[in-house]
């Protein structure tokens, strides 16, 4: 997928001019926030659970190598296989080899952001496999040839009439008089089509919300049940997960699950939390015959020990983007890569480089709402600021910004000069505003005055007036 993060500003402008998108984004702003607030209010221990969840991940990351080894041992004992993938290409190749080994015709997929990150679908299709996304939202965007615009609600940017048009275009044997006006009828149509795909798939690929070291278990958390049908019906179940998904024990997972759904959708608990361990046991009437886990690094091991380590606590609940005023304004696609919103603004430069992802951590007011709702207490604004520091150190920030900042800093470090200059400015601007109290336009202030007036100074600086008062006293 082409990374368009460097064009964030242009992407954002386009998104803000897109009426369909703006209508769809209203759903994020209303639904998620209210539901989360209600769920949190019903759980008096929620703040302590956040602390607990944070501590568990911090502990795990400090011993990540050992937990991964313990996890691998358990997976192997259960009859599964762990494949280690250093980067996206290696992960794709491992999965292609697995699909090839059974001459897979049809591959079903549960929702997985890692699969987006490694661009798995085009690779599978190029190798001749039919790929079917089975999460309703993912299915819709697959039909549309798009990428997810939200990590838990991938089609949140799409309105129902657009879904209807897509279904009519792709489901060719659909009677023209079939009513597809309502979400209910659209869901029924997708259910029918996808049921057939589930039952005839050769390989099922899911992501993982957690990997449990104690038991060698992978866990998916869903509401539709598509992830379950994806993994219990085909002969092969492939799990693709990044390595920071590991947690030590079932007790630890229990803690984090208590904050996950509440933060994500405002549910007390998601409908299906599924723990999968190895292939089916002897005598089991259903379940896969082979179980593979592809453990992806793709830059994460290098984040450990850096100022971005805390980002590895992220459990992909989406609360940060649900609460982000920038995300509300532009939606997910404007961010230009796989992960949008505040978590994407931190993660994207980590995974694709600050030269490509550097725009994203700049596009924040640091309002802090993301951090205030993050179940894992990830200091997202702080890490966005760290990216700005990296950019500044590498002289990647625009020359005008550096020049302006330099001139300002020169004065700000010299109080007498500063007060002289601000004194002149206060007087000059007040005169120029001719007692109107504001400017509709001012040289060099176009970024401000394009959309709003600039309040005029009162005429003297506080320091000047204070000095006079002190002299009088």
């Amino acid at each position, binding site marked *: 997928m082409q990374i368009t993060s460097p064009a964030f500003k242009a992407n954002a402008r386009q998104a803000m001019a897109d009426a369909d998108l703006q209508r769809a984004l209203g759903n994020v702003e209303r639904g998620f926030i209210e539901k989360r607030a209600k769920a949190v209010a019903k759980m008096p221990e929620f703040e302590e659970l956040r602390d607990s969840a944070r501590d568990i991940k911090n502990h795990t990351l400090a011993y990540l*190598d050992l937990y991964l080894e313990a996890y691998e041992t358990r997976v192997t004992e*259960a009859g599964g296989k762990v494949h*280690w993938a250093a980067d996206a290409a290696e992960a794709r190749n491992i999965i292609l080899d697995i699909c090839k080994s059974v001459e897979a015709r049809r591959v079903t997929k549960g929702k997985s952001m890692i699969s987006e990150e490694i661009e798995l679908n085009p690779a599978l299709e190029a190798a001749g496999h039919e790929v079917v996304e089975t999460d309703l939202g993912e299915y819709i965007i697959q039909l549309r040839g798009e990428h997810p615009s939200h990590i838990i609600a991938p089609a949140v940017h799409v309105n129902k009439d657009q879904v209807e048009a897509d279904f009519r275009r792709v489901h060719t044997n659909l009677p023209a008089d079939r009513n597809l006006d309502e*979400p209910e009828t*659209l869901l029924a149509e997708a259910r029918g089509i996808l049921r057939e795909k589930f*039952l005839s798939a050769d390989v099922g690929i899911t992501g993982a919300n957690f990997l449990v*070291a104690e038991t060698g278990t992978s866990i998916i958390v869903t509401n539709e049940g598509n992830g379950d049908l994806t993994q219990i019906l085909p002969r092969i179940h492939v799990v693709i997960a990044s390595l920071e998904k590991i947690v030590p024990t079932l007790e630890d997972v*229990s803690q984090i699950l208590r904050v996950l759904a509440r933060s994500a959708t405002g549910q007390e608990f998601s409908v299906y939390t599924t723990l*999968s361990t190895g292939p089916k046991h002897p005598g089991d009437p259903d379940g896969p015959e082979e179980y593979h886990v592809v453990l992806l690094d793709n830059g994460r091991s290098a984040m450990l*020990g850096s100022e971005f380590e805390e980002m590895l606590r992220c459990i992909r609940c989406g609360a940060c983007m649900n609460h982000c005023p920038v995300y509300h304004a532009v939606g997910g696609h404007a961010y230009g890569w796989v992960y949008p919103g505040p978590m994407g603004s931190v993660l994207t430069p980590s995974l694709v480089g600050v030269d490509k992802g550097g725009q994203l951590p700049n596009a924040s007011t640091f309002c802090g709402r993301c951090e205030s709702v993050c179940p894992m207490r990830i200091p997202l604004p702080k890490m966005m600021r760290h990216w700005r520091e990296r950019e500044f150190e590498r002289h990647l920030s625009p020359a005008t910004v550096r020049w302006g900042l330099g001139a300002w800093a020169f004065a700000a470090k010299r109080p007498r000069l500063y007060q002289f200059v601000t004194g002149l400015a206060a007087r000059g601007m007040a005169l120029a505003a001719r007692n109107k109290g504001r400017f509709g336009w001012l040289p060099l202030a176009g970024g401000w005055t394009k959309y709003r007036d600039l309040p005029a100074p009162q005429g003297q600086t506080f320091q000047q007036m204070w000095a006079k008062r002190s002299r009088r006293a």
Partner: protein
Amino acid sequence: MSSRETILATIRRSLGANAGDRTRAATVASRLAEAPKGLIPARGQLPDDKRIQLFARMLEDVSATVERVADAGDVPQRLAKFLKGHNLPPQIVRGEDALLAGLPWDKAKTLEVKVGRADGSETVGLSRAFGGVAETGTLMLASGPENPTTVNFLPEVHVVAIRAEDIAGDYETVFARLRKAYGKGKMPRTFNLVTGASRSADIEQTLLLGAHGPRRLHVMIVG
């Protein structure tokens, strides 16, 4: 060097850790062995009756239906009645679970019972839950010949029987039981935590039941 070795080496370098550090290994070993519990919310920590009531209420909050069947022997008839009341065919699929197998199925003569996995042709599946969690109204189901996973997902309607005594306050209590039943570090192939019927809100954030799995979840609390 394999990717496995490269990744582990990078992690150790980033953490400033040595591969042979015994103290680190001991920390991890004891965490895995002891599996300390974290914070358990007060909500589910209730005496038996209250706990079961909470379990039922939480399930009803997520659009499941719940009935209490005091005598396990009444389950077949009650099930037949439930199916009739909802215009469902008198046919079910279930696994070989001892509790389910031991029920007096002859008391519900009209009911056709298929034993084994589901294949997508069945309308109603019956499972027996390994445990339940009052905190969120969550059912926990272990896969195997006793309760095939396909029964949980392929039929339109999922009926789950659970013994009242198997309803705990929190997840941790059921996980501890699971550890006893299967052995430390061992798991059934699939362990499903089910809280309500299948749903999706992917179209305009409108909540709809019956996305891919069952459209309806009915729970019978036995005992």
